[in-house]
């Protein structure tokens, strides 16, 4: 039976051929100032935060997710059913032991702070155990990433595509999102906006550097805190009232819902005076889409449609 192994050998060569055009392993890359080396495409991934889960699902890598944690609800369509079936390691930040029990070869986190002693564990510690770690580059803290752009979001898609050797899927996704983004016409009415994430006493708001600013710019809205060189800040209500934004973007979290925010804004004696509150001029964005990831473009398109539906008389 000599011919069979030879036959298999040819098969192996054929199967390997596409990989030659794809990623060369070991793949070295720099992530938030940490050098990363992947010996092969990760097969067992733990995703912390919804943005990383959505990225993996959008690239068709759902089957490689061995666990998710600290999610903000399920992924949007068309991945909702698939995300509902994923094993949840922890509602909140899991401990290193819970993560290691899932035997991942990569932990992909939406926030750099997820990798800490209080959380999943330090990156170096996980690395020493052979578990690679990756942080969404827009969420880097130990190095300051440039002001977020859609190109940077597309670059993350491409980078994750390269890590998993699914560059074709990544290219297709970027092309699709680029086309979708091109179809969004910025509003030309010269409107101002507040990006209201959470908080009652001191509102946590989108400032000038991260996903909120990027999406507001695409919508043609002027962020009232665009000048503050940070992603998000705890702002004072006085500054908000002084700017009196035309529009308020409400971030819809699972436990901090739009209904709660609307009630809070309407009941508070100061915020109830805002034009946007008096005229109910709100745009709603899902929680996970408010941070850099694959949901930014669809959410921006959705908000553009909401915005077009708002009539504003100055």
């Amino acid at each position, binding site marked *: 039976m000599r011919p069979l192994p030879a036959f298999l050998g040819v098969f192996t060569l054929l199967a390997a051929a596409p990989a030659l055009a794809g990623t060369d392993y070991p793949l070295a890359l720099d992530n938030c100032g940490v050098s990363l080396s992947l010996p092969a495409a990760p097969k067992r991934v733990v995703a912390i935060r919804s943005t990383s889960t959505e990225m993996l699902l959008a690239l068709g890598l759902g089957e490689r997710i061995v666990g998710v944690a600290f999610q903000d609800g399920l992924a949007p369509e068309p991945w909702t059913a698939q995300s509902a079936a994923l094993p949840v390691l922890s509602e909140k930040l899991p401990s290193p032991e819970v993560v290691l029990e899932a035997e991942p070869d990569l932990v992909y986190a939406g926030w750099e702070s997820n990798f800490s002693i209080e959380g999943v564990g330090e990156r170096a510690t996980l690395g020493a155990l052979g578990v690679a770690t990756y942080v969404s580059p827009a969420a880097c803290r130990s190095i300051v990433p440039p002001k977020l752009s859609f190109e940077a979001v597309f670059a993350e898609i491409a980078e994750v595509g390269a890590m998993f050797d699914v560059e074709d899927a990544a290219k297709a996704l970027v092309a699709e999102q680029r086309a979708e983004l091109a179809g969004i016409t910025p509003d030309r009415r010269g409107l101002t906006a507040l990006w209201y994430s959470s908080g009652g006493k001191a509102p946590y708001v989108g400032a000038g550097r991260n996903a909120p600013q990027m999406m507001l710019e695409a919508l043609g809205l002027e962020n009232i805190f665009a000048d503050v060189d940070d992603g998000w800040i705890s702002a004072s209500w006085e500054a*908000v009232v002084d700017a009196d934004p035309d529009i308020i973007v409400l971030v819809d*979290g699972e436990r901090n819902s739009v209904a709660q925010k609307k009630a809070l804004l309407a009941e508070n004696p100061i915020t109830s005076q805002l034009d946007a509150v008096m005229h109910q001029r709100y745009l709603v964005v899902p929680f996970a889409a408010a941070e850099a990831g694959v949901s930014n473009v669809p959410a921006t398109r959705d908000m553009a449609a909401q915005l077009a539906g708002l009539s504003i008389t100055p």
Partner: protein
Amino acid sequence: MNPPRLRLIVPALVVVLLASIVLAVTLGPADIAPMEVWQTIGHRLGLVAESPVGRLREAIIWELRLPRLLVAAATGAGLALCGAVLQALTRNPLADPYLLGLSSGASLGAVIFLLAGATLLMPLGAFLGAAAAMALTLLVTQLLGGVTPSRAILAGISISALAAAGTSLLIFWAVTADSYREILSWLMGSLGGVVWGEALPVLAGVTVLGGLLLISGRALDAFAFGETAAASLGVDVTRLRWLLLGGTALLTGILVSIGGAIGFVGLVVPHIVRLATGSRHRLLLPVSMLVGAIFMVWTDTAARSLFAPRELPVGILTALVGAPIFLLVLFRYRRIT
């Protein structure tokens, strides 16, 4: 009798406090001319026919700055008063609502009520927490063999740590990533977003309870010589002690439920005041209240203006300013003794 300069100190400080409020209300992230601010307040008080500013600026002045300033003044006055009274009652220079565990107990009580959804009853929860912490601290002090300053502080620190751990556990268990930030800022002590509905209970509490505690100044002077001496001067020691302890717990609870655990004001202000007035409580208590109020008006104005449009929890500033001052006070005591 007080020397003349001390007799003038209370009216002088009242003037400084009023001037501070009048000046501080013109400061803030929104750029509004001082004259417009004063005219707007005059308009709301019915003294000026027309407001010179629009609806929103009027709201900034009347709904944001004024209640917050008054709460800052009341909080400073109340904390300084509680500190001075507790220092006298426990004959302990290091006593204050923060160190005796009252603030941590109040925080725990308030967080329990907050997470249970009873936001409106938070002052009650804070009072219950403060009272429970105080009762535990005193009980432990008694069990250790009677009240001495070091025992009271050690007991206070343990109870404080216990209450803080309880608060952390509740936050860890119940609070999501997003609301954590808000609670954290409150735990550090913040007067951001205070509205009239919250300001009025604080003002009423400080006025009523503050007034009652002030009257106790004479009895506290007797206390300072020890309980036997106080009893021989005709003071019902046990009853007075419980009344004063209950009063400080209630006042601390009210203050913490609105502003969170603002540290060092209760500790530092009475010490600084004592340097000027001596330790007679008839003078020490009102002067501490006024100095505490002036101190908080300006630290909170800094907290809301320095990093505009960002909001800084004022507790960070009071600790930043208070801790070094306290060290200076300690060094001064060392030189005297």
